[in-house]
């Protein structure tokens, strides 16, 4: 936990680095000569075989014809729309207008929703590469940008990492416009805004910032927009990069920006006054602010009755504690405080330890690392080899190592319980894995003293965290007592008439009135 101590070191690193900015020379515009324009475009695009230059003729009523080119990228355009709505009307009919009005006439004939005029070659190229189609006609220094992209998208399916029993089974997909539609369908209110931004010089990644204008805190929205604007990179690979670029504490092991793959959760978060960031090409949306408490909450908690939801939330919290402390407590009890083990339990523990050739610390570390390897292998392994993994994992690690006397059975039980408990709170499973090892090392050196000091350091660190200015440990630190209704336990929805105070918002009332209870 040493990263807390030396602030000056990190503040040096926080300073924005100088990026070699690509010099933007005055960008060339289209000329009146079609051949020249084509050459200009080909200069940059001709080595790419996916770029198609489609030549055709436009006939005028005077009998003359005009050369025209469609520039498009094969595979990311809507071919049907271009063929039926652009090429057909343009080649069939002859235009009855003067040459000056031709562009307007063409625009009217083409039945595509979004048509823009473009005269900047640089911009036009980027537009083409993003799936738009450029129509150039001889004699005009402007091209028509036809927005008709169409590419294969994955069908909307349930998210594999966030499943639900009672609730929506839709999940975000890789297409940004579909994801926006998924959220819009849930909040069809004019106040829900999706602001578009483009990040990445090469990747030109579309990013959409969603928020409900009348609920979300405008200062927070401004802050998010400003931070994203300040990102000057060549490429954005996924939403995780955006997360790490804009978060307050990039060196903490705790994530202070949340993520979800569920549109219903995203909509619910928006209604709490949060901001969602959607990144094109990534089915994972980010949400800001994210509090620690988020990890033990689930959308489904609100659809079932409060009693079981509260129980499950408490279980999640206790599991988190068990998961990070159990191996540490185990080594503390056995190596430092033998009196803490119940007398009835000591006999099997001693007998298991006797045959093991390694010191306890090494035994547990070995098991933790092996479990981590099996877990990682299970995530990445192709399904065909999956059965081999489960045989090795269950048999070799579990049974054979015990009967061979390499590992004691209590150690396996302790490490397994620790891992299983972490699976109940998947959103911070990575943090749990690190904390488990950290606490274990601290307590294997210093005993229960080390464990307590390490826990205090973690707690102090957690309370010092903020998620874009919002305290990470709210509503416990700072204390928002009213929010406790929906924290470790969830009281009936009727009693929760206000929005959470932990999340800054402009509209505090959530429930205005409800039907009376009972049959009266």
């Amino acid at each position, binding site marked *: 936990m*040493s990263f807390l*101590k*030396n602030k000056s*070191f990190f503040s040096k690193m926080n300073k924005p680095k100088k990026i070699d900015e690509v010099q933007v020379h005055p960008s060339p515009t289209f000329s009146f000569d079609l051949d020249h324009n084509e050459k200009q475009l080909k200069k940059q695009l001709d080595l790419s075989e996916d770029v198609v230059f489609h030549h055709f003729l436009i006939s005028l009523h005077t009998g003359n014809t005009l050369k025209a080119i469609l520039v498009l990228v094969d595979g990311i355009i809507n071919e049907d729309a271009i063929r039926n709505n652009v090429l057909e009307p343009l080649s069939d009919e002859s235009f009855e207008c003067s040459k000056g009005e031709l562009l307007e006439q063409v625009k009217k004939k083409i039945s595509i929703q979004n048509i823009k005029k473009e005269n900047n070659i640089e911009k036009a190229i980027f537009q083409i590469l993003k799936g738009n189609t450029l129509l150039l006609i001889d004699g005009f220094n402007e091209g028509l940008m036809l927005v008709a992209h169409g590419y294969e998208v994955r069908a909307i399916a349930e998210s594999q990492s966030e499943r639900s029993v009672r609730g929506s089974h839709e999940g975000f997909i890789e297409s940004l416009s579909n994801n926006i539609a998924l959220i819009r369908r849930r909040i069809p209110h004019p106040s829900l805004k999706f602001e578009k931004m483009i990040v990445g010089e090469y990747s030109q990644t579309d990013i959409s910032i969603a928020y409900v204008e009348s609920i979300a805190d405008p200062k927070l929205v401004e802050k998010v927009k400003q931070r994203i604007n300040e990102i000057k990179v060549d490429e954005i690979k996924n939403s995780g990069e955006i997360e790490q670029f804009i978060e307050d504490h990039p060196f903490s092991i705790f994530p202070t920006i949340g993520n979800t793959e569920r549109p219903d959760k995203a909509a619910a978060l928006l209604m709490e006054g949060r901001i969602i960031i959607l990144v094109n090409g990534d089915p994972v949306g980010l949400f800001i602010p994210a509090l620690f408490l988020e990890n033990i909450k689930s959308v489904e908690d609100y659809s079932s009755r409060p009693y079981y939801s509260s129980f499950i939330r408490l279980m999640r919290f206790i599991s988190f504690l068990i998961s990070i402390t159990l191996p540490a407590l185990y080594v503390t009890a*056995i*190596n*430092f405080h*033998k*009196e803490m*083990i119940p*007398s*009835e339990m*000591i*006999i*099997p*523990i*001693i*007998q*298991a*330890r*006797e*045959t*093991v050739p390694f*010191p*306890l610390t090494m035994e547990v570390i070995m098991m933790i690392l092996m479990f981590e390897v099996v877990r990682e292998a299970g995530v990445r392994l192709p399904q065909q080899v999956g059965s081999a993994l489960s045989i090795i994992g269950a048999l070799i690690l579990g049974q054979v190592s015990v*009967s061979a*006397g390499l590992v004691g*059975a209590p150690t396996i039980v302790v490490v397994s319980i620790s891992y299983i408990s972490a699976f109940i709170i998947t959103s911070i499973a990575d943090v749990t894995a690190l904390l488990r090892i950290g606490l274990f090392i601290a307590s*294997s*050196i*210093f*005993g229960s003293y080390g464990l307590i000091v390490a826990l205090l350091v973690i707690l102090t660190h957690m309370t010092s965290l903020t998620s874009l200015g919002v305290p990470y440990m709210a509503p416990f630190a700072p204390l928002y007592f009213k929010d406790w209704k929906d924290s470790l336990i969830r009281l009936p929805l009727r009693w929760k008439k206000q929005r959470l105070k932990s999340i800054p918002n402009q509209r505090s009332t959530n429930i205005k009135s409800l039907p009376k209870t009972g049959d009266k």
Partner: protein
Amino acid sequence: MRRCSFMILTLLLLSGCWSSHEIDKSALVHGIGLDKAEDELMISVEIIKPTGSNEQGSLGGGNVQTIVLEKKADSLISGARGLIQDAKRRLYFNHARAWLISEELAKQDFIRLLDEGRRNQMFRLNSNIFITKTNPIDILSTSTLYENLSSAEIISALEQMEYNPEFTSVKIFEFFKLLEGPVPNAYLPIIQTKEQNDKLITSIEGTAVINTNKMVGRLDTKETVGLNILLNKAKGGTTTVTWNDQDKVSIEVNKSNTEILPTLQGKHLKAKVKVDVEGNLADNMTTSNIDEEWISKVEKLFSKHIEDIVQQTLKKLQEELKTDISGVGIETYRKYPKEWKTIQAEWNEIFSTAEISVDVHTTITHKGLINKSVERDHKKPKYPFQR
């Protein structure tokens, strides 16, 4: 960064894992025995044997899982350290749950030998303490019935006191509380071996009476019941009386409450022991019909019987042992705290000459599922379609 790593490195230098001790390099003692060996102390320990879990084989019976060692030493702690020679591992007394003290040692001034048990943080104050008739090593090496360790088995017996008032259970902190209380006498359960079906088993039989710092005598099983009633610790168990000099009737006690009401006149003590017993009819070997009259007669018989038991115990304590472990002293101290200072020194004398009357009141609340024990003149239900 440099400062940061320097801080971590110095932290590691500050203290190492000095208090860390691998469990497979330590010997955990489960039972401690103390005996007299000429001028020295004979210390015996029962160590949990760390057999590999796959060698367990036969569970229960036979002490395959213990190691019993013996060592002569001047004191408990020097013996514990000296035993490393034999045990080859450092002894840990964190799990010592049974202390066995031989009768021979107990008849001397043995309390001071137990000082270590409270002074060292390693020992548990909630471990049980017993007196043995012979060398404690005999008890520790007796084969067990179910548990892995003899000392664990003895202790598990004490948890069953709810159903049997025939033995007492004293933990170290209770023992010292008695000795440091107004009446510095104590009692400890006696454990001995007995043969049954050609097999030695351990059994708790009777109670040792300790006056100030040495054992002065013992109460047998029946007198122990009386002691438990006096101490208000008899909360269960069965009692049997004879009806009409031949048949037996038993009750299972549910509730029992004892109150001691002392009256001090100068140096003369009069005390009244009031016992309320509530129980169910458990066993009726008589042929009589059970009605209210019969029950009230039986209740009187039980009251008389219990009174006899208590009187017998008191007689032994007053006349033979002249030691008050009955709780009369504590009640007197509570009622006459001022006068107590003047009589404390000669309390055992006052107790032995005290007039103590016992008044038992028994109530039978349930008679069980059947009425008479054998009903021969049953009336069979009439068969409805009989000709």
